[in-house]
């Protein structure tokens, strides 16, 4: 198996302390980066083929380079630690077990984009990760790593999934309702508090110190042609050893399930969600795909946040969709019409089908409604919901029809 990069310190019980982090070579990358020109750091990250690990998979270095060069006011770095994608629990491990890796990544990223004030938006339910990270930030201040060119403000969320969407997060951070912002302008031009802002995921920034320390070529070499590095997969559901696993982005889904001990329950695989709740579902014979951004895109789904949810033969796909549909109806922020109205509508229809009161045209209505709403909204939330709506029904239509009287 590939090298362990992100979880390298996890086995040390004191990994969250500055001393342990330093003992493992921590902050050496920062020492190196502070000798580098900001543009050179961005260039290194570009060459490393690092792509955002929060969900969208956007090239990180490219994102950094969008900050206007002639801007004279503040530039903000915002860390998205509002990990809320169903089936995803990797960032909480990083915050709990290697908080200094994030701080070091932030220091380097902040230098690259000339930022002096940064925000870490932590999911409200993440109490222990927040404690660990807050303690690490204090240590970093005490050690003079922070407060000498970079300040970190920690902000806790209040439990809304939409606040993990980068501009919803910015609205929330600004003290407003967590509504995503219309684009353009994009955050790199006008983000938090109206200033150019980079929003990066926790895991993404944790990749930055190793890139600086060991070089872009090494990192790029860990992955595929279009995406460098390893990443953390949250594997859950019907596997024998559900956990977070680190592997190259070039690992196949089949290999990953084996890594997690294989299918549990009936032992026979039915389906897998490869990239968090918003990813389209894959059937048992679609799992020979590589787990990089482009590999899953070509398979008609997405890597998203790499939350892998495994379903064995005993799982009811209609029920699984109902749970997800309820989630999207509950979490839709309600700002724009197609998402606000159809998430609730689709949930009602799926619920009614599972309840045994489906109409024969319900499935076609759901598919049509989902497709009509796709691509019409302010943010990607609804497109994320459409993935499961369509794929669950199209790939397991018979299971749904079996529940509908006179279908």
């Amino acid at each position, binding site marked *: 198996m590939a090298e362990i990069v992100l979880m390298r310190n996890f086995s040390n019980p004191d990994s969250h302390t500055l001393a342990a982090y330093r003992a493992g070579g921590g902050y050496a990358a920062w020492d190196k980066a502070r000798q580098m020109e900001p543009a050179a750091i961005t260039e290194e990250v570009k060459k490393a083929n690092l792509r955002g690990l929060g969900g969208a998979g956007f090239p990180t270095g490219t994102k950094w380079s969008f900050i206007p060069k002639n801007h004279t006011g503040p530039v903000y770095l915002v860390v998205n630690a509002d990990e809320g994608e169903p089936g995803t629990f990797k960032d909480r491990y990083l915050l709990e077990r290697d908080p200094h890796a994030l701080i070091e990544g932030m220091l380097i990223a902040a230098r690259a984009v000339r930022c002096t004030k940064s925000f870490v938006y932590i999911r409200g339910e993440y109490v222990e990760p927040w404690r660990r990270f807050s303690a690490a930030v204090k240590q970093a201040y005490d050690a003079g790593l922070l407060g000498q060119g970079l300040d970190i403000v920690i902000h806790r969320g209040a439990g809304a999934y939409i606040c993990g969407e980068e501009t919803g997060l910015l609205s929330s951070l600004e003290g407003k309702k967590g509504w995503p912002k219309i684009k353009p302008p994009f955050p790199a031009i006008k983000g938090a508090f109206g200033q150019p802002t980079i929003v990066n995921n926790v895991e993404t920034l944790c990749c930055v110190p190793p890139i600086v320390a060991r070089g872009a070529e090494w990192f790029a070499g860990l992955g595929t042609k279009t995406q460098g590095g390893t990443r953390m997969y949250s594997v859950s559901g019907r596997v024998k050893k559900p956990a977070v696993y680190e592997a190259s982005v070039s690992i196949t889904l089949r290999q990953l399930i084996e890594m997690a001990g294989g299918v549990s329950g009936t032992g026979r695989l039915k389906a897998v969600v490869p990239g968090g709740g918003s990813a389209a579902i894959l059937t048992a014979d679609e799992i020979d795909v590589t787990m990089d951004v482009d590999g899953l895109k070509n398979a008609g789904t997405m890597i998203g946040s790499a939350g892998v949810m495994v379903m064995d033969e005993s799982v009811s796909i209609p029920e699984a969709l109902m749970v997800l549909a309820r989630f999207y109806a509950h979490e839709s922020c309600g700002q724009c019409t197609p998402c606000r109205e159809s998430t609730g509508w689709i949930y009602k229809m799926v619920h009614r089908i599972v309840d045994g009161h489906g109409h024969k045209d319900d499935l076609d209505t759901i598919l049509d409604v989902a497709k009509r709403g796709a691509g*019409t909204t302010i943010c990607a939330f609804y497109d994320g919901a459409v993935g499961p709506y369509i794929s669950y029904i199209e790939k397991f239509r018979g299971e749904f029809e079996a529940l509908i009287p006179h279908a």
Partner: protein
Amino acid sequence: MPKLTINGKEVEVPAGTNLIEAARIAGFEVPHYCYHPSLSIAGQCRLCMVDIEKTPRPTIGCNTVATEGMVVNTETDRVRETRKSIMEFHLINHPLDCPVCDQAGECWLQIYYMKHGLYDPRMKDEKVHKPKAVPLGPHVMLDAERCILCSRCVRYCDEITHTGELGIFERGDHSEIGLFPGRELDNKYSANVVDICPVGALTDRDFRFQVRVWYLDTAKSVCPGCARGCNIDVHVNRRRPHHAEGRRVARLKPRFNAEVNTWWLCDAGRYGFGFVDAPDRLAVPAQREGGTSTDATWEQGIAAVAGALRRLPPAQIGVIASPKMANEDLFALRRLLDLRGVTQVAGQVSPRVPGDEDDFLIRADKNPNSLGAELLGFGADARTVIEAAGQRRLKFLWVFGHDLLAGALPERDVLEALRVVDTVVFTGSNVNWTSAHSHWVLPATAWTEREGTYTNFEGRVQRFRTAIEPLGQALPEWDIIGRVMTLLGESLQATRAEHLFRQLVEAVPAFAGLSYQLLGDTGHMLATAEASGRRGAGPSGAAS
């Protein structure tokens, strides 16, 4: 000035114009709910989709700025399909209670469904239920089920009145408009949210359930509530007089005028029309003798006034005109007074307490035509006339509109004046203390019952038009004055207000060059005001 092509038509638009406005300039309508030209861009309703060449899918027009060479199509098949879908989404949880909804007939859900929806309904499930008939403040009622969450009202309270009473609470399809805790929608401009609400979610508590909107007739007018002269439409109910217990004026709506009030109207002005159909309207001429009032004919009333004017030396005649009178009335009065050489003339009765004023629309001067009155020689305070009367120098006093006791004039002086003057004539639309103590009452029309012009504080002369017939035998002031002149052997040579306006333009240099045609729907500045740079101040705080 970028040049772009919309539906095959090349059009040049000001830099920064969005595609909804650009299409409007090119003559095409892009349907929309949340976009409003005075408010920030929300991009929430998703209805204003247009196709832009080389973009993968339809884009919202409100948040897209027209650029040079852009090729836009507002009517492609996929744009039409997207609109249809968006209409379905807007309506799945809507109660479809049009038969009992006040907005019916002027509802953009109805209009756009007919134009852009026309799908077969597919929603079989229980709709989301939300609060209904929630009073948000003194003037506005909320039905959250009808709301399409366009957020116009929220943005209005944030960006125009800066009062921030409203927010959107809850999430998803349970989202609803509401008040922040402890707040009430009671700012001075609160009812504008009813106008900008595209659906029946926010209705006017004064208007609701009075009359269906399709029975309303409308006339372009000007608010007489203060010196701003906000442009309005007067909506009247003539066709179903039994529906609103005889109330003829159903409501006032602001009418766009970039130079005066943009889209807005204050609540005081909007609800200031109650006097028009009030029970205390004066409807027939009346004579009071020895404490009892008896109805009289116009011939008797006019004869009494003309008789006094003919008989008495000018020094014994006093007139208190009103800055609530139209320019045409004041000009007619000016002619009459000049004919007789009357000089004991005033126009203003100062209020006891200064009027409410702000830095947006509301002016402290609660008269619509103070500047016009001043220009026609009626700017003086009534105090001197009252003093003359109290000193028994006047035998005849003609008061227009004012209640002399309601203002800052000393009560004792007024009582004394009215006691000692032989003949007090009151001309106005409603009963007040002064009318009750006059010897003659000659009823005047309300401003909705006639046409004329007011000159606002900036020097903008604006027309108001007839919305309803005069109540009873009431006449416009200029007509009353004209009849008096006829008895005095002089003709006003006017059978309508416009004739007087033409004479006024010839006679008074400040009005030179103006005509009803030039005033049009939005008025025109006085020549003098234009020269002295009064022009173009516009309402502060509003985009125009």
